[in-house]
């Protein structure tokens, strides 16, 4: 049931993020929690549950981004597979997670630039992506740390419950 709780939490975070930004007028400090979730899921050990959570949050991620359709989530899925490929070689302590998330954010923007360039060469959103690439990667690193802490907390909560249940047996 842990994955179900993580899925619900992820959906709430993705839909709530835009609402909070709207309420408080946040323009410059957008954490991109959907992308942060993708990074954390890509680095997690269990492929099936993380892939399932990502499948569930891809549509809401698509709604939350008001750019050209599909580019953002396509880049997110590409990043997920890349992180899955590398996850065995990567250590995910806090400083490393920050650095990995920063690089992942850069890769995500680069894939977006590539797909926009290939599929919508006339699009005027390319300068915007290019000018925000570093800033977006920096912010998403904080988002990934937040998500990782949240998932760790959920994980520890379930571990304690499981141990208690085994103790009662």
């Amino acid at each position: 049931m842990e994955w179900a709780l993580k899925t619900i939490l992820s959906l709430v975070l993705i839909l709530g993020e835009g609402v909070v930004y709207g309420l408080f007028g946040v323009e410059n400090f957008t954490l991109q929690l959907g992308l942060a979730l993708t990074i954390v899921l890509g680095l997690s050990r269990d492929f099936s549950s993380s892939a399932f959570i990502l499948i569930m949050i891809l549509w809401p991620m698509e709604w939350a981004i008001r750019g050209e359709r599909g580019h953002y989530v396509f880049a997110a899925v590409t990043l997920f597979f890349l992180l899955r490929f590398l996850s065995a070689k990567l250590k995910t302590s806090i400083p490393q997670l920050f650095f990995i998330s920063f690089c992942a954010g850069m890769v995500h923007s680069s894939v977006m630039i590539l797909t926009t360039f290939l599929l919508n060469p006339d699009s005027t959103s390319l300068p915007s992506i290019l000018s925000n690439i570093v800033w977006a990667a920096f912010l998403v690193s904080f988002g990934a740390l937040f998500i990782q802490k949240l998932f760790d907390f959920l994980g520890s909560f379930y571990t304690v419950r499981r141990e208690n249940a085994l103790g009662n047996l």
Partner: protein
Amino acid sequence: MPFWKRYNHYIAIVLLLAIPIFSLSSKARAGEGGALFGGASFSQYVATAGVGGAMGWLSDLFDSSSAKTIEDLQTQIFSLREENTRLIGVLQENNRLRKLVGFKSANPKFSLVPADVISRDVSPFFNVVSVRIQTDEKILPNQPVVSHEGVVGKVYRVNRNYADIMLINDSRSGLDVLTQRTRARAVVRGTGDSTNADVQLDYVTSDSEVRKGDVIVTSGMGGVFPPDLIVGRIKELQPKTNTMFRDAQLTPAVDFSRLKTVYVITGKD
């Protein structure tokens, strides 16, 4: 071994790839948002109302617990302050309505449809806000959107009572404008830079009489915006050189971080 357990990795990979490919191949690049977009907007509206309500409740709770501990005189001061704040709010509302009435009398063929901001784009790449239309009037893509301060942007996607508004500082936005003082032509373009709210003023000819601080208004060309709506003020202007055009930066009249209620201009055609 059950089918799902045996092939779950492959099924997950296929589903993960199918969603973005379906989305990329979607022909509706702008305009109608679809039922899924509507569902998300509705849930965001519910969340906005919920968060707003919770904040109001917490505020009330704080007020009631404080009220028990303060002296009568402090209560009076608070109530007077509250009244004062309310009156300032009424004056601001009056000022906003006066400006809107001014717009209505100058443009009788247009009507203003109010809409509340419910959420914003979560990426730093795009400057788009989602709104909930307060009336049943049909809203169409590309219709202009204003606030009491000036031009906000234009309708990007619509689904029933919800719409996405592309702000003028989005890099995909372009707007034909004039300087109010000399009627010199130019084009306002969003930079998309999330760390800077200013927009770019392009195609300012080197021989045109333009200076720092000039008010920029819509020209009415292009068929989207009515003429003479305030867009902003020139902040920086490149000195005259031998080139054909000068670069300029514009501070928008609208503070996009404080958008609460906007108005869609309808009834043009």
